[in-house]
């Protein structure tokens, strides 16, 4: 909401400075967004006298002028045809900034003649496009008179950010009323004296609404005004409209805009001669159209409020007028519409048709329902004052909607809600200054009636806010919130704790944490999801912001892969990235969203290094498997007990991926991203990835905070190595489990330390070397004990693998 200082002072009698006013606006909840003082922009420019204007010796079209600024006489070279001896114009000294051309003047020499500053045109001052000649001012104006004051450009423009509850401040008068209540002056009376009508309006109004739809337009006041003369509105009105960014059109149109911004009261003026028959207000018929004032045609539906004549819809109530019945320069008879339109219906219509208008803005917030008769008088007076003419009697259809309501209020509630004491008499003063009526039934039981323009006031909390904001929020006293326990309680949820542990663990393992969109696009969602069709359809954003962010993501991986691709394109091909965040399986509040720790490694594990090739090896699934296991373990999940199966989802390489699970429940997937997908996504490096589902992890059983008792063996562990020849598809895990199964108490560790295929090993087989650690429990082992144990290990492995011992 924009207005000018002088406009405000039409309504507010105040000695306050501009700064005091703008500070107070913010303090009472009408937040100042900007103040532009054009006087500051135009500060350098003033009236000067052209003492002499001679033809330039070396240029036909230029003149060399001697300009008297009142303080000194300066030579200026000027190209304007109207520059002449004895005129007064507007002088811009060198060094000044010329707003219309966006240049800063410098001293110069033009065709050999020195020129200091310039005499300016309207275009150079940003007033109009006129560049025919320089501005001329009347000879009786004193030298040095500031340009801004002379042209009425010294009126500061104030813009406030209006919250949607304050319909009353969509007009300057409402703002003045609030400032007056806050002690910044007094509200001036409004001249709403009736303008007597002299004839019956030839146009009558009927409200063709039912009891159910009556609220669409409960009251319509019409007035015929004949013999008006339309034309430009007066300078003062044009200046104000221009200052707040509106384009003056004609007096009749400007009056409607002025009423909107001055009093928060939108209204409409028809060209009465273009209306056919009487006016009827009804709901539109489905499919009816209106060619609107903005040169667009709208198709209406039966929820919209239509103002109609005998031919059809001529305006959309509260939203926009029709083009065919609008006022033009040749309009001589007009019909004024002052009506009340339902906020909800207006909002819905405006939204459905995507029409943003100053009328809609006000009606959907709720205009003052009791102000229609006065508004009709004020608008009539403006029309007659500016355009002449004779008004008819009023035509009134319907009645003002009920707005009076009483709120029971105990002044003690102010202390209870705000924590500070504001004396009851001061509360009453504040409420009354804002237009509220207060009836004190008893000292602790008041009945408060909000004014007609404050439809937003519903209950006692609203009254406390009114009292508080005018009293001043700066007087609130800060008090720490009392704690319920003296020692800090755990604040995290289990899910958050898992996320934090996974995040810390993965960052420690060298991955960088990212935060990427919860969105992806359709194609990626299909490539990285296994959702049912219905679930997928319900994760489609109805109004996406662009074509890339159309779906809720079923996986974090496509975003990370794209991030890696972008980094590669910037010259960083080796990436290790992760994210802990949501994925979406359906749109339900429960079970639709899961928290996943997902990561990728691309390219090489490091840069080339003197220490050997291992430092810069291509990343592989064993890197990423370690990440997945580490994240699981960090969250306290029994990762080492999990089974590994080969049924990872389709976005992984089928032969280079796995699933970590306990029974049917899947806790993580890992592997290389499917090469076909990488190709599709234009990835130039191979990428390995993992997804750990951290929101539903099994936790180790725990009794209290104590850990299991540690028993240390007095005997040293022993180590034995074996080598087997097995089929190449025998899984390492099969052999390790078999080895441990040979003696679960004494064999405490087993792992593969070599896998070999090639020369010396027949095709289809592999040589696998196994290392086991034996922990004697009762006594040291004899050679025979050891030999027996070794044989058991060998027998177990041979049985499970069908292989042979390699000698």
């Amino acid at each position, binding site marked *: 909401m924009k207005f000018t200082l002088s406009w405000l002072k039409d309504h507010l009698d105040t000695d306050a400075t501009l700064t005091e006013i703008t500070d107070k606006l913010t303090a009472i909840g009408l937040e100042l967004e900007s103040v532009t003082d054009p006087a500051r922009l135009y500060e350098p420019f003033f009236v000067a006298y052209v003492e002499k204007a001679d033809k330039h010796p070396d240029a036909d079209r230029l003149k060399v002028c001697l300009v008297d600024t009142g303080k000194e006489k300066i030579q200026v070279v000027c190209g304007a045809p109207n520059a002449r001896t004895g005129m007064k114009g507007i002088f811009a000294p060198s060094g000044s900034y010329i707003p219309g051309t966006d240049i800063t003047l410098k001293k110069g020499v033009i065709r050999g003649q020195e020129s200091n500053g310039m005499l300016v045109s309207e275009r150079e001052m940003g007033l109009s496009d006129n560049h025919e000649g320089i501005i001329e001012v009347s000879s009786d104006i004193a030298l040095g008179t500031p340009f801004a004051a002379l042209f009425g450009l010294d009126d500061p423009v104030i813009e406030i950010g209006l919250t949607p509850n304050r319909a009353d401040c969509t007009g300057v008068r409402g703002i003045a009323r609030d400032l007056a209540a806050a002690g910044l002056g007094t509200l001036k009376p409004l001249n709403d004296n009736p303008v007597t009508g002299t004839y019956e309006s030839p146009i009558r109004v009927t409200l063709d609404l039912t009891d159910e739809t009556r609220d669409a337009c409960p009251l319509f006041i019409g007035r015929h005004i004949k013999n008006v003369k339309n034309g430009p509105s007066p300078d003062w009105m044009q200046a104000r409209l221009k200052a707040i960014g509106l384009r003056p059109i004609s007096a009749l149109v400007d009056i409607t805009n002025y009423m909107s911004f001055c009093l928060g009261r939108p209204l409409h003026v028809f060209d009465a001669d273009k209306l056919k028959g009487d006016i009827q207000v009804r709901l539109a018929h489905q499919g009816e159209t209106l060619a609107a004032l903005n040169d667009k045609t709208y198709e209406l539906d039966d929820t919209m409020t239509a103002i109609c004549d005998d031919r059809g819809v001529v305006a959309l109530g509260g939203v926009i007028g029709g083009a065919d019945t609008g006022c033009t320069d040749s309009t001589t008879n007009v019909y004024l519409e002052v009506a009340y339109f339902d906020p909800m219906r207006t909002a819905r219509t405006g939204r459905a048709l995507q029409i943003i208008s100053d009328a809609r803005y006000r009606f959907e917030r709720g205009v003052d329902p009791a102000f229609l008769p006065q508004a009709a008088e004020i608008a009539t007076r403006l029309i007659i004052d500016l355009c002449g003419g004779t008004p008819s009697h009023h035509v009134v259809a319907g009645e003002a909607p009920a707005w009076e309501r009483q709120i029971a209020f105990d002044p003690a509630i102010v202390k209870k809600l705000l924590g500070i004491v504001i004396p009851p008499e001061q509360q009453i003063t504040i409420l009354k200054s804002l237009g509220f009526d207060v009836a004190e039934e008893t000292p602790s039981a008041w009945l408060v009636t909000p004014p007609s323009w404050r439809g937003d006031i519903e209950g006692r909390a609203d009254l406390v806010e009114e009292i508080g904001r005018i009293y001043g*929020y700066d007087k609130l006293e800060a008090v720490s919130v009392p704690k319920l326990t003296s020692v800090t309680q755990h*604040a995290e949820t289990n899910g958050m704790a898992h996320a934090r542990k996974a995040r810390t663990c993965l960052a420690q393992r060298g991955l960088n944490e990212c935060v990427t969109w919860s969105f992806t696009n359709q194609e990626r969602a299909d490539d990285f999801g296994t959702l049912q069709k219905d679930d997928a359809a319900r994760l489609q954003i109805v109004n996406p912001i662009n074509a890339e962010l159309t779906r809720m993501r079923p996986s974090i991986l496509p975003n990370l892969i794209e991030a890696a691709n972008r980094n590669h394109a910037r010259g960083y091909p080796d990436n290790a990235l*992760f994210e*802990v965040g949501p994925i979406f399986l359906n749109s339900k509040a429960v079970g639709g969203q899961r928290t996943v720790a997902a990561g990728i490694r691309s390219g090489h594990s490091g840069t080339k*290094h003197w220490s050997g090739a291992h430092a810069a090896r291509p990343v592989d699934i064993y890197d990423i498997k370690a990440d997945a296991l580490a994240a699981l373990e960090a969250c306290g999940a029994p990762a080492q007990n999990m089974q590994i199966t080969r049924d990872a989802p389709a976005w992984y390489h089928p032969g280079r991926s796995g699933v970590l699970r306990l029974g049917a429940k899947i806790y993580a997937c890992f592997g290389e991203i499917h090469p076909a997908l990488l190709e599709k996504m234009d990835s130039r490096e191979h990428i390995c990835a993992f997804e750990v589902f951290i929101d539903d992890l099994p936790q180790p059983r725990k009794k209290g905070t104590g850990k299991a008792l540690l028993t240390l063996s007095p005997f040293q562990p022993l180590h034995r190595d074996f080598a087997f020849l097995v089929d190449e598809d025998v899984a390492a895990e099969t052999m390790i489990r078999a080895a441990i199964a040979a003696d679960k108490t004494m064999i405490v560790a087993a792992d593969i330390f070599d896998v070999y295929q090639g020369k010396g090993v027949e095709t289809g087989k592999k040589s696998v070397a196994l290392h086991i650690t034996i922990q004697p429990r009762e006594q040291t082992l004899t050679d025979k004990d050891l030999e027996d144990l070794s044989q058991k290990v060998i027998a177990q492995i041979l049985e499970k693998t069908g292989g042979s011992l390699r000698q």
Partner: protein
Amino acid sequence: MTQNIQTLKSELASMIEAANDLDSLEQARINALGKKGRITDLMKTLGGMSPEERKTTGQALNDLKDEIAALIRTQEDALKKQAMDQRLATETLDITLSPRPERKGHIHPISQTMEELVTIFADMGFTVAEGPDIEDDWHNFTALNFPPGHPAREMQDTFFLPEDPDEQELYAKKLLRTHTSSVQIRHMKENKPPIRIIVMGRTYRSDYDMTHTPMFHQIEGLVIDEHIHMGHLKGCLRDFCEAYFEVDDLPMQFRPSFFPFTEPSAEVDIGCSRKDGGLTIGAGEDWLEILGCGMVHPNVLKNCGIDPEKYQGFAFGMGIERIAMLKYGIPDLRTFFESDTRWLDHYGFAPQSRPNRALKD
């Protein structure tokens, strides 16, 4: 005999001295003291001597044995030191070579900030509540006192999802939460006062320019009890801001504002200085808006089954990226979501420096 011993002594001594490695020294030791060594040989002759002679010669031989053993030890030490010196001389490495490469990972500033928020608010007696990103009209708007069709809904450009046919009316109208305030509703429906919670998470609005991203993070605070008033709100925010921004006596101003779910409502500014193009939080000539807040609207309490005659309290909400940008001097919101590895390396946090109010970073 004495003469012989003297000769032998000088012979053996020069042999030991001549031994220039541990092998030849061992040879010399065997030669002198071994089972068939020279001194041992002489010891064997003692048996054929007179008791008197045996006594003096035995004594002399024992002395000789000790002296030679001592000489061997000395020589051995010298040789070992020499060998060690030689070894060390050959083992010098270029200590300026780089260590084996290890990747350094970082925590994203949003996560870091959220953990800071948890630690501060935990100290102030809050716990964390959570809720889904995909919400419905009732939880995101209607229960928060945004009636359907109310223009306040248009303050927030909402992303919509298709209706859920399994749900009815407002619960079927699915959308992405525009604020974390929806979790207030879920929490109050499930829990009785006293309530002291914060909610953090992703929020979504259809806005994408220099200072807006379609997804961002919010923190929401909610305190409901019998005697919580707006002074507590001011105190809570003062305590939080001073702790978070690490500025004592941080100037703070409350400006009246409007949110459908609070009444009275306020926006909060903190003091700052914008001298020399920078931005410093603290006492200064300017104000910086950081959050919106207010006393929970009685309608909201009613919608959640809490008696507004008995209970009251406050709520506040602020942008996590915004306060992270302010605290850590990150200039551009959009960069948070670009996953530029250079940005992550620079603005990210080392995993060992997780925020903890009790421990120093």
